[in-house]
Every structure is written in C-alpha cells, then in structure tokens.
C-alpha cells in the first residue's frame, strides 16, 4: 500500500483553474493541497522552494528512494518535508523514517517509530527485519562478538516484535495457524482424505496438495509413533 490512510489518498486539486496562465513557471506552480495545511508560509518559505507535493506524491517519492536504496537522499527528502502532522503519519513516510534511522544506526529512533505507529501487513516483513537486525547488532556490541542462532533466539525472546509490525502469529511453524487448524479439524474427522479432498483442503488452506498430503502423512506417522511410545 503506497498511499497512506485513505483520508490522505489523492488530495488532489478537484478542479483545475482554467484562468491560470500557462506561462506560469514550473517552479512556482504551487498546489493548494487542502488535505494538509502547513503552517502559513511554510510551503512558500524560501527555504522550501516549491513544496507543492501531495501526501500521495510524498509517499511515492519515499517508495522510489527506498526501492533504489538511496537512503541518503531519502533522509534529505524527509528532512525537507513541511512540519505537517498528517504528512508525517503517512505510512510510507514512517517507513522511510524507520529505514533512515536504521541506516544511520539511530536505533532508538527506529524502535520509537516502529512501536508508536501501526503498520499495514504489507510492510511487516521489512520492518520486522529492521527491528530484529537492530537488536541483533546491539546485542552483538554488548557481547563483543557475533551472535549465533541461540543468541539470536534469546534476543527475539527478550525483545518480542511489537504488534504494530507483527500480527501475532507464532512463527516457529511453517504453515499459518489458520491453515493448521483446518488440517487438524479435518484430521479428527478423517485421517485419510481422498485425492479430491486433498485438493479441496489445499484450496482452503492456501497450500499445495503435496503439502497437504505430507502434512497428513507426517501427522499419521507421528500419531502412530506416539501411540507406540505410550504403549
């Protein structure tokens, strides 16, 4: 999702002003962007020459600079934004801030941004990666040497992902809880689904039929093993 919250999408001029002479120089072609009202004069200030970007356009620039890895320029762009609350709460802008903070090693700021704003699922993976990496790096600095798998596990336990960037799904499983519960339910009715039923299950769970087959096979095997063990 590129644009921010719905209220901010578009925010474009509803009407052109036909009387505007077409000789108006490009630089000074301001947009009256009604959805964010900068402090009077902010967008006209000589320091911010032609800040005539809508929220959506700001978000677009943030995305482009992020995707191209131009974090320095992204930082400068963010710095040049007018002090408008709504603008700064735009998700693409926040994401950009998080990335810039990470890039600069300013982890406190990174955590602050990640924890105080809700992000849409689309952005979760990237932001989770930033969170974890920052924590790993800090832990390594404390430890004085690189972290192994166990070390990282402990870091993850100590600094669980904030719900702003995580949907709470437990992650030590390969399949989502939703899928697994569908499979489990089915298993209690019939541990031997037919090929067609497997296909239906695959569709219902978003898995492939092979995955469904394997899940059942493994489940049966493990049940059998458990039974034997119990005697």
């Amino acid at each position, binding site marked *: 999702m590129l644009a921010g919250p719905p209220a901010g999408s*578009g925010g474009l001029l509803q009407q*052109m002003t036909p009387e505007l002479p077409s000789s108006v120089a*490009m630089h000074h072609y301001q947009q009256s962007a009604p959805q964010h009202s900068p402090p009077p004069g902010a967008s006209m200030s000589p320091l911010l020459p032609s800040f005539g970007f809508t929220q*959506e*356009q700001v978000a*677009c620039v943030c995305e*482009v600079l992020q995707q191209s*890895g*131009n974090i320095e320029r992204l930082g400068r762009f963010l710095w040049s934004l007018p002090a408008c609350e709504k603008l700064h709460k735009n998700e693409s802008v926040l994401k950009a801030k998080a990335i810039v903070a990470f890039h600069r090693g300013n982890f406190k700021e990174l955590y602050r941004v990640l924890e105080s704003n809700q992000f849409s699922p689309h952005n979760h993976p990237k932001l989770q990666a930033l969170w974890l*990496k920052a924590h790993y790096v800090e832990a390594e600095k404390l430890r004085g040497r690189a972290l192994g798998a166990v070390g990282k596990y402990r870091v993850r336990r100590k600094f669980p992902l904030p719900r702003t960037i995580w949907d709470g799904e437990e992650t030590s499983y390969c399949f989502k809880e939703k899928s697994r519960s569908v499979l489990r339910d089915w298993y209690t009715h019939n541990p031997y689904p037919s090929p067609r039923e497997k296909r239906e299950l695959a569709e219902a769970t978003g898995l492939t039929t092979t995955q469904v087959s394997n899940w059942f096979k493994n489940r049966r095997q493990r049940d059998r093993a458990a039974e034997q063990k119990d005697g």
Partner: protein
Amino acid sequence: MQLHRTPAILSQMMTDSPSGFQLSENGPVSPVKAESNGPGGSGSGRRAREGSGGGDGGSRSSRGRGRRQNNPSPSSPESNLERVFIWDLDETIIIFHSLLTGSFATRYGKDAQSVVQLGFRMEEMVFNLADTHFFFNDVEDCDQVHIDDVASDDNGQDLSSYNFGSDGFHAAASNGNLCLATGVRGGVDWMRKLAFRYRKIKDMYNNYRNSVGGLLGAKREQWLQLRSEIEAMTDNWLTLAIKCLTLINSRSNCVNVLVTTTQLVPALAKVLLFGLGGIFPIENIYSATKIGKESCFERIVSRFGRKCTYVVVGDGQDEEAAAKQLNFPFWRISSHSDTAALYNALEMDFL
C-alpha cells in the same frame, strides 16, 4: 506474511556489508537478485517471456519449428540503468479520449461542442495514419503487444519493392478466425507477410518519428493547426508532460516506456501525431489490450531486470492496480498540478 523468511533476509544483509548494519545502497533489499544485467541481454529469456503471451493473436507459429532469432530490440541498457518510468498514454501524457467523450469539457468548463470537434478531428487523423501507413486494416485483428513480437517469423528479405497491396495477405486473412487460437493458421506464408508488415511499420516509425510532417504531406498544416488548438484548449497539458519525459530522457540512467490500452498500431499513430515519436523509441511502446497492464509490466521487468526501480505514471484505474500488484510506486496524474509536481520532483532529483 511469514516471519519465517526473515533469517534469510538478515543473513543476506549481514554478508552484504562489513559494518553489519548497513542495508545495501545499490539496489532493492530483496534477497533474490539477478546477478548480472537483466535477462534482456540474453535472447532466450526475453523470447520465452514474449512467447508466453499466449493471447497475442495466435500469430506465433508452432513451437517446434526452428526459428530465426528475434529481431533483437536494442539490448537492454547496462547495469547503470537506475529507473524505468512506465507511462500511460491517454489522459496522462495526452488529452484525447476525454475530448471525445466530452468529459474534459465538463470538467474544465469548456464549450462541449468545440472540444468534441477537436477530438473527432484528431481521431480521424489517427486512424487515417494507421490505415494509410501502418496497415491497420490488415492487422487490426492480429494486433500485437510489441512491435517485435512477430519478428521471428520474418525472413529479413528486402522490402523496398515489395507490394503489400497484392501479396495475398488480405485474402488469406479474410478467411475468418485466423488470428485466434494457436496453431498454424493461414500458414507460414501468412505469418511471414504479417511479420513484413510489422517490420515495415517499424521502419516507417523510425524514419518519420522526428518528422511526422513528412508523413502527412498536404495535411501537415492542418495537423499543426489542430495540435496547437488542442494545446490551447488543454492549457498545454502535453507540453508539460513532454518536459517531464525529456528530462527523464536526458538522464543516461533512466528510461521512458509507454504502456497503453490502445491497440498497438493506433497507439503508434497517436504517438507520432502527438509529437511523441522523438521521445519513445518504438521498442519502448507496449499495448496492453490483449494481455493487460500487469502482464506488460512483467514483460518490462523481464526486459530491464530487477536491479532498477520502476515508477508508474498514470491517471488511475488499471495502471494503479497493476503497479500495486508489482509493488511499483505510482504517481497519479489527475491534473496539471500533478504533472508539474512530477517535474519538480524530477528536477530536484527526488525521482
């Protein structure tokens, strides 16, 4: 999304940089990256891509037959290509369709009659050009996505004295349903004639792209008049768009690509008639009528690779949806100010 993937991403990031917490500066953070230049450089990658556009009118011969190498589009720019701007045509770069429907008049409070008239006059020129010079009558039902799509059926023979009017293409084509379904309909012969036509179109475009007047002969004055009337009516919409396009073209690491829902041949005519021929090489023009914008975008990515960033510029609907699907940033054009803002963003080096 599963966090499951994260360890892979992180170890990628870790190995990328010695300092340990820099994200890679030079490209998207995705761990899946093509190494060298995009597959555009290798013929097979691209050809597979284009061949799989199954809906392209069945003009592909059966796969088994040995094929001549595709007329290669200019090989994709080296890995210094940073950004690809994917433009929509109607209502983004040019105002045309909304002239005809009257919606432009309504929106901007102009006189409906005169606006629609302008639209009609331009439409007539577009189809005249398409029919006269681009074989539109012949190829209308066998329209392609891209000018090189049938090149592999070409045999490269000299066309300077070839008589398109009497080569039997039309007779064969009027045999109904030739361009649907796969298979060798009309035969190898017919395919080759189709390829000749597309080659001829390509040559025409390349010869006249910077001197459309030459193509129009007596109608040139009329055309220039019409163009300036449209510019005046639309408050120099096109002029503004051209400024952006030109700025992008002036950068060696950026490229402009056009994806339109008009059929390819009329689209080429539009491009020429609106003075955009000098801006878009014909190989950078794609028609989404058959396969949709998203598939076109995917073809473009196959061509230029994943190392560069893509920006979609359009007036909404299809291109926005397609951009979202592929996670491309989208710049919406709804009015002059949006194009002006785009120019500013380009000039300030933000895009």
